[in-house]
């Protein structure tokens, strides 16, 4: 199916390379406005306390202070992506350490900080609850008084006949797993600059979802959406953490509205850990899986207790992914899931690359490995036997279109040298494997998962795309330019793309759910097709040919199959369509909404227009003296349909591995009573260049018929199974199964000792 493309599939350098290597790119902290003042936020020191009184009078009197706000200055509206439970500033009580209680704006940072120290808050401490399972006990303290047993949400579904399938199983495995908080740790923290003038609020944000931010800010501030304008700055890494689920922009907007001055708030690194980007949802997963003698999965039963933290944010969506999505990766028939999202007095959790998959796959992919081990089967063969195929419909209604998961498995096994290495085992070394399925967009908000774009062709032939999806470092702008260039038949150098700006571009959901290549790509392709239709219409006049018979290549327009014949150019066509009586510029609008479904009452429905797949394998060495795990090599093979930009696509898999290995082996903060002890990069260790193992990544040939030039999503796939792959390899190496994250040397040693005791 894959044909030769002129621009798609080429190793093109990034669209915004120049400004990023020269330091010219303007990130949020680089944006200044005349007269801008500094905002700072006073945060709760307690995990759970009633606010008895807030006295801001001393702070207000400090010279240089322009405004002080508390909940009294807000509309006391609660907001949130799925459940509106989060206030802008704490109302009556605080629910986690770091929660926003009050804020000041002052002429400079020192004054603002001093003013914070002059705000007197009287608290009455309340008993907190940190463990979600304990929070579900009948006598547990309530984080929200109206949420019984602290349950924010429950998903309880059964498909097929699970009990009967277990009864027929030749082998059953059962285990409990626990995943952890995992912070995005983008090197740039969250920030905003707000200006309120003439009834219009303009916000510069480093967000990855501009229009959703607009919706939430407008609601919380009591403004019309059209009276809020969000302009995206350069974004220093998102990974889900910059999806406007936190209060940075809210407080910034509030201060700007109260003071009438432009206000800037940039999170300090400590604030980013306490109350900035919403870390990955930790899950306790009880899993039971039954297999046929040959390794075929017969039944699966899950009980998930997910830690919501103090407010819901995206965790509700994440729970449903954890509960249901993985059944798209392997062919399941009989599954039962009872999943709970539970409030605790900790930082609200939320969207982080993988969106529920990494937390659940840590359990699932290990259970599969345990089954293979118990049956004496090769885990690669078991994965292959169960792997999804084109045409597979998951028990929850996900309809698999293009799917080359089996090829991914074969290729991953080949690259890691699976067969050879299993034949010649080396003491203390082991291999692990794991797979994943991800979406290319997920339908939830307003039963719409579409995208749209505008393309104009300037009278000099230069093409300009208006898109509001937003570049966050993932390379989406380059991909969209390539797609437009391919469709229009113009050189890539002639294509440019806008900054995302809610006033200037059509509505776009933004960057999440690995949706942009597929959804925004299709929208841009449609817009380009419309612009092309307009170009060919004019060209048809000058070439005295039927527009349908024309084609464009390299910016030249000629009769199909006769590139040497009469021709005109895109520039000439655009010029002549405009400069004439009754002329008009070339502008194409394109829109795309995939053929997916909003899940029904029973959580049934095809959540995405296309599914992407991956298989990963690792070889590790475990030092039985120290418990140290060394990753000797890592392999990641993906099916993302057509690879639009290989450099960018490789980068997605490479970055995912670094985050995934950090999640597996290192990342975490020591918490004491709901309070991270050292919320900084000293204690929260992200991997460095010296930590990275030899890594091979590859893409199997694949073509998604509904994707732009066959492409589908990729951004999150590479993160999903990493922790499980490492855990499986450790088990293969030294025979211990690590069931909690991160996998520290201490845990490995402890497991080895226990194994020694029991023989």
């Amino acid at each position: 199916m894959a044909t030769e493309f002129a621009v798609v599939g080429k190793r093109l350098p990034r669209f915004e390379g120049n400004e990023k290597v020269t330091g010219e790119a303007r990130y949020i902290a680089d944006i200044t406005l005349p007269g801008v003042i500094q905002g700072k936020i006073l945060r709760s020191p307690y995990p759970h306390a009633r606010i008895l009184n807030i006295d801001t009078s001393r702070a207000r009197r400090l010279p240089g202070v322009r405004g002080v706000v508390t909940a009294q200055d807000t509309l006391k509206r609660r907001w949130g992506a799925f459940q509106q439970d989060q206030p802008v500033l704490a109302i009556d009580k605080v629910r986690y350490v770091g929660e926003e209680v009050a804020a000041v704006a002052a002429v400079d940072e020192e004054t603002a900080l001093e003013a914070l120290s002059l705000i007197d808050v009287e608290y009455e401490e309340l008993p907190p609850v940190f463990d979600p399972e304990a929070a579900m006990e009948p006598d547990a303290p309530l984080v929200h008084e109206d949420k019984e047993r602290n349950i924010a949400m429950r998903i309880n579904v059964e498909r097929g006949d699970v009990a009967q399938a277990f009864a027929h199983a030749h082998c059953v495995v059962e285990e409990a797993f626990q995943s952890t908080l995992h912070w995005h740790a983008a090197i740039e923290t969250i920030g905003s600059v707000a200006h309120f003038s003439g009834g219009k609020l303009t916000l510069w944000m480093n967000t990855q979802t501009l229009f959703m931010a607009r919706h939430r800010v407008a609601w919380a501030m009591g403004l019309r959406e059209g009276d809020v304008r969000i302009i995206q700055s350069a974004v220093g890494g998102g990974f889900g953490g910059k999806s406007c689920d936190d209060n940075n922009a809210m407080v910034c907007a509030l201060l700007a509205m109260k003071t009438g001055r432009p206000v800037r708030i940039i999170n300090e690194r400590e604030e980013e850990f306490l109350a900035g980007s919403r870390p990955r949802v930790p899950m306790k997963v009880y899993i039971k899986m039954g297999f046929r003698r040959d390794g075929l999965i017969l039944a699966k039963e899950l009980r998930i207790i997910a830690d919501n933290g103090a407010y819901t944010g995206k965790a509700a969506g994440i729970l449903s992914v954890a509960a249901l999505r993985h059944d798209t990766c392997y062919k399941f028939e009989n599954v039962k899931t009872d999943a709970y999202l539970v409030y605790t007095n900790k930082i609200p959790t939320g969207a982080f690359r993988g969106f529920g998959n990494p937390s659940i796959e840590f359990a699932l992919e290990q259970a599969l490995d345990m089954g293979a081990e118990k049956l004496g089967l090769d885990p690669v063969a078991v994965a292959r036997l169960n792997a999804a195929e084109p045409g597979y419909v998951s028990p929850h209604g996900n309809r698999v279109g293009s799917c080359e998961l089996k090829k991914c498995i074969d290729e991953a096994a080949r690259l890691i040298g699976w067969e050879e290495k299993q034949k010649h085992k080396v003491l203390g070394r082991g291999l692990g494997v794991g797979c994943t399925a991800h979406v290319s967009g997920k339908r939830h908000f307003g039963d719409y998962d579409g995208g749209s774009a505008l393309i104009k062709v300037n009278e000099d032939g230069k093409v300009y795309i208006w898109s509001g999806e937003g570049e966050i470092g993932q390379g989406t702008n380059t991909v969209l330019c390539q797609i437009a260039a391919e469709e229009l038949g113009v050189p890539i150098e002639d294509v440019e793309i806008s900054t995302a700006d809610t006033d200037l571009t059509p509505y776009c959901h933004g960057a999440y759910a690995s949706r942009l290549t597929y959804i925004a790509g299709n929208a841009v392709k449609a817009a380009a097709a419309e612009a092309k239709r307009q170009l060919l219409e004019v060209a048809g006049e000058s070439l005295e040919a039927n527009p349908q018979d024309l084609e464009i290549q390299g910016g030249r327009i000629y009769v199909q199959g006769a590139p040497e014949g009469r021709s005109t150019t895109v520039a000439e066509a655009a010029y002549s369509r405009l400069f004439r009586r009754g002329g008009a510029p070339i502008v194409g609008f394109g829109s795309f909404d995939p053929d997916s479904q909003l899940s029904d009452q029973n959580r049934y429905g095809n959540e995405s227009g296309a599914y992407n797949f991956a298989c990963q394998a690792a070889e590790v060495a475990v030092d039985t003296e120290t418990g140290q795990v060394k990753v000797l090599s890592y392999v990641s093979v993906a099916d993302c349909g057509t690879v639009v930009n290989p450099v960018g696509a490789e980068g997605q898999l490479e970055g995912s591995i670094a985050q995934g290995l950090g999640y597996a082996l290192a990342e975490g903060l020591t918490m004491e009573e709901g309070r991270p002890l050292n919320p900084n990069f000293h204690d929260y260790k992200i991997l460095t260049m010296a930590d990275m193992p030899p890594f091979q990544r590859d893409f199997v040939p694949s073509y998604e018929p509904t994707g732009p030039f066959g492409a589908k999503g990729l951004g999150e796939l590479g993160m999903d199974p990493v922790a499980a792959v490492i855990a499986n390899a450790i088990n293969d190496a030294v025979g211990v199964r690590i069931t909690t994250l991160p996998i520290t040397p201490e845990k490995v040693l402890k497991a080895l000792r226990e194994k020694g005791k029991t023989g």
Partner: protein
Amino acid sequence: MKRLITLTVNDQEYQLEVPAYRLLVDVLREDLELTGTKEGCGIGVCGACTVLLDGKLVSSCLTLAAKADGSRITTIEGLGKNGALHPLQRSFIEHGGFQCGFCTPGQIITAKALLDINHNPTEEEVKEWMSGNLCRCTGYYKILESILAVARA
């Protein structure tokens, strides 16, 4: 208490009056509007604020501006000559050595310091040298590739 200091930044001399506690990163970013230098952690761990001070790498988030009095400083804006990019900058573009780009100025400055003293570093030397510069996007593979390509050229 303010102090009068002289800094030569990217070959240009500046006289500035700064409070004793003012950090170099703030002087560069705010007073001189050289915002290419970034702040990621504020505690000397991430490398985003790295600049060259008399040829040596420093974290400008930990350096007092007053302490830098009389020194020569190179920031990302000082790389490249007459509008042409520095070979490292070209290489980062060509090999995809950045994604979000926020760590990139620090990565490039740090790599330059290495290549200034060691024209042909081994892969291991590069990894060791660069391990004070965090990147959350790339997994470092393409940063390494970008640097090695310049070293091998």
